[in-house]
C-alpha cells in the first residue's frame, strides 16, 4: 500500500489496498474534524477482532464479511444501523438485494454493505488460444458439465504442457470451501437446512469431491502453491484458469495492459464459475460491510461514523473498481460501472450469488473444517466418504457447542 500512502485522488488508485487507502485519505482530507485511523491485520483478522471485542475495546468501524456478521451480532456486539443510516440519508432500498440480505440480521441492518464478491474463473487467453479452446468471437470455451471440464483440461494440458487450473491448494481452506458451496448450490443441495446441523455426507458433495480429486490426480491443476505463489504463477502464465476472487480483477487488468507480461500476450478474461450441474444456476458469494461496534458514544462520535458510512456509500463506485460488485443498486446499473473492464461478463453474479443462510454461525471455523477435509480427500490422504463423514461430524460438534 506504499504507493498510495498519501494519495487522495481516488480515481488514480488500483487494487483493494490502493483504493481503500485513497478513499480514507480523501475522507480525512474532506473532513478535517474526523480522523480515521486504519488498522490492517493479518488476514482474515477475525481472531484479533475477537480478541479486541473480548477485551472490550473494539474498533469503532470494522470491515467484516457478511458471513461473520451473525457471530458478532448474536453476542450483541454490533450496533444496529437503521437509525443512523436514516439520519445520514442512506436508505436500505438503495442496496442490492444480495447486499441487503447479507447485512440484515434479526430484521435489523447491522452493517453498511459495500460490495458483493465471489470466486471467478480468471482466464489466460493466450494459453486458451494455444490449447484451441477459444470460440470464434475470441471468448474462451468454458465447460458446461463435469465431463466437458475434464476433457477440456486434458486437451489444455496436451496442447500447452501446462495445467488447466492455477489453484492455491497449499495451506488453504477458503478456496476448497467456496468451490464446494458453489457446486452444492448448483445441485440444489440444501446442506444447511438447519443452521445448527449440517448435512455433508451426501451424494452431491461426493460428486464435487470426486471431480476435484480427478482434476488433482490428472495433474490438471497446480498443486503446491500458496495464495501468493498462485497469483505469481498465474501472472507468470503457468496455467489457464486461476480460481480467485473479484478483488484481483483490477490488478490482473492492469497486468494485462503492461507489455511483456503473460497476460498481455493474449489477453485476460474473467467469468463466473460455469454451471456444471443441472440444478439452479448459482454460485457462492459473500460481501463486505462496514460494521459498527456496540459502544457508548457521544452524538458527535455517532455523527462522525454516520458521515463515514455515508461517504463510503457515496463512493461505492470507486470501491467497485477493485472488481467487487457494488452494493448500491444505482452504481450497479450505472454506465460508469458497466464501462469498467470485464464487468459485462461478471455482472450476472448479482443474481447468481448465493450466501449461506445468515443464521449459520462460525462460518470461518466451518470453512477451516471443510477446507481441511476436502484437502485430505482430494490429495488422497483420506477416502472421500471418510472425509465427508468427518467433515459433517466436526461441523456439527462445533455448532453444538456454540
Amino acid at each position, binding site marked *: 500500500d506504499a504507493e498510495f500512502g498519501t494519495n487522495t485522488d481516488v480515481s488514480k488508485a488500483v487494487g483493494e489496498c490502493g483504493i481503500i487507502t485513497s478513499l480514507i485519505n480523501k475522507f480525512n482530507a474532506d473532513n478535517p474534524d474526523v480522523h480515521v485511523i486504519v488498522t490492517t491485520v493479518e488476514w482474515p483478522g477475525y481472531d484479533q*477482532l475477537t480478541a*479486541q471485542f473480548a477485551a472490550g475495546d473494539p474498533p469503532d468501524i470494522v470491515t467484516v464479511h457478511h458471513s461473520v456478521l451473525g457471530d458478532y451480532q448474536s453476542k450483541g456486539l454490533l450496533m444496529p444501523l437503521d437509525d443512523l443510516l436514516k439520519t445520514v440519508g442512506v436508505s436500505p432500498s438503495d442496496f442490492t438485494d444480495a447486499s441487503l440480505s447479507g447485512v440484515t440480521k434479526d430484521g435489523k441492518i447491522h452493517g453498511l454493505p459495500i460490495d458483493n464478491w465471489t470466486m471467478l474463473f480468471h482466464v489466460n487467453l493466450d494459453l486458451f488460444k494455444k490449447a484451441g479452446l477459444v470460440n470464434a468471437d475470441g471468448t474462451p470455451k468454458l465447460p458446461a458439465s463435469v465431463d466437458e471440464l475434464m476433457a477440456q483440461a486434458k486437451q489444455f494440458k496436451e496442447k500447452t504442457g501446462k495445467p488447466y487450473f492455477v489453484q492455491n491448494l497449499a495451506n488453504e481452506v477458503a478456496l476448497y470451501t467456496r468451490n464446494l458451496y458453489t457446486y452444492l448450490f448448483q445441485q440444489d443441495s440444501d446442506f444447511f437446512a438447519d443452521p445448527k446441523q449440517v448435512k455433508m455426507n451426501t451424494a452431491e458433495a461426493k460428486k464435487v469431491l470426486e471431480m476435484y480429486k480427478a482434476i488433482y490426480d490428472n495433474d490438471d491443476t497446480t498443486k503446491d502453491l500458496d495464495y501468493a505463489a498462485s497469483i505469481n504463477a498465474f501472472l507468470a502464465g503457468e496455467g489457464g484458469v486461476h480460481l480467485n476472487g473479484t478483488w484481483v480483477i483490477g490488478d490482473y487488468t492492469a497486468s494485462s495492459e503492461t507489455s511483456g507480461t503473460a497476460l498481455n500476450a493474449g489477453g485476460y478474461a474473467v467469468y463466473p464459475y460455469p454451471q456444471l450441474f443441472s440444478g439452479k444456476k448459482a454460485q457462492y458469494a459473500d460481501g463486505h460491510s462496514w460494521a459498527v461496534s456496540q459502544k457508548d458514544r457521544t452524538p458527535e462520535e455517532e455523527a462522525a461514523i454516520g458521515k463515514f458510512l455515508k461517504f463510503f456509500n457515496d463512493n461505492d463506485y470507486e470501491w467497485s473498481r477493485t472488481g467487487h460488485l457494488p452494493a448500491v443498486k444505482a452504481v450497479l446499473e450505472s454506465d460508469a460501472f458497466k464501462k469498467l473492464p470485464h464487468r459485462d461478463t461478471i455482472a450476472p453474479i448479482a443474481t447468481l450469488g448465493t450466501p449461506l443462510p445468515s443464521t449459520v454461525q462460525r462460518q470461518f471455523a466451518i470453512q477451516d473444517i471443510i477446507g481441511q477435509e476436502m484437502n485430505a480427500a482430494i490429495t488422497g490422504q483420506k477416502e472421500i466418504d471418510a472425509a465427508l463423514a468427518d467433515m459433517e461430524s466436526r461441523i456439527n460438534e462445533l455448532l453444538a457447542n456454540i
Partner: protein
Amino acid sequence: MSSTSSGIVGRSTGDRIILILVIVLALIMMAPIAWVIALSLKDNKELMTDMNSVFHAPYTINNYINILATSSVFRWILNSLIVSGGLTVMTLILSSLAGYGFARLNFPFRNALFIIVLLGLAVPEQAVLIARHQLFSWLKFHNTYHGLILPGLAAPFGVFLMTQYFRAIPKELDEAALLDNASRFKIFWKVLLPLTIPAQATLGIFTFLSSWNDYFWPLISGTKKEMYTLTIGIASTQTNFAQSEGLGFLMSQAVFAGAPILILYLFFQKYIVTAVSGAAVR
C-alpha cells in the same frame, strides 16, 4: 576434537578439516538469508516473470524506499523499543531485587517460595494466556504499553538467573559490609549490584531479544495498528492486500525488520555469548 587452544603437540590437521566443514555448513546456514537479501534488492515486476533474476543485476533499493514511505514501520519499531526496553528495565530491577532477596536474605517460607517460582519456569505461556487475556480485558490493559509489558515481568527466568548469580558472589562481601555498618539495602545497592553487571547484561539482552521477537501476546493484546509491535506489524503486511505487491517488497520488509536486531546482536555479540554461557553454568 575438543581440545581448545592448547599447545598439545600433534593435533592440528584434524582440527583444520573440522574447521573447513564447519565453515561450509555456516555458508549453507547463511544461504537463505543471503537469498532473501538478494530478493529484497530486486524489482518486483522482474521477479514475477523470472525468479532466476535474483542471481544477477540489476538490483534496486526501491523496495526499501517504499518501506520508509510507510510511516507505520517506524511507529512499530518505536513500539517495539518501548515495550522491549521497558520490559528489560523492569525485569532487571525486579529480578535483581528478588534475586538478592532469595540469595541473601532469610524470610519465612523462603525456600518454598523459591521452589514455587522455579516451578513457574515450566508453565507454558499458553496455559495462562486465556485467563490473562480476560484479566487484562477486565483491567482495560489491552492496547496499552503496560498491557504489553506486564506479562513478561512474571517470567521466573530472570529471578532464577539473578538468584544464582547473587549466590555465586562470595558471602564475605556482605559480611564485610555488615561489619562496615551498611544496611541491607545499601549492601544490595552499593556492594553487590555493581558486581552483577555481567548478569544484568545477560538478562537484559535475553529479555530484550525475546520480547522483541514475541509473537503470541502482542498478537492478541496489542490489536490496534498504532500499538502493533514490529513483529506483529510485519506479519500484518504479509497477507491479503500486500500479497499482490510482490516478493521483493515482502522480502525487504523481512530484512528491514530483522536488521535492527541483527545489528544489535553483532554489537553485543560478545556479551550475548558470555551471557548464554553464564546462564548455562548453573
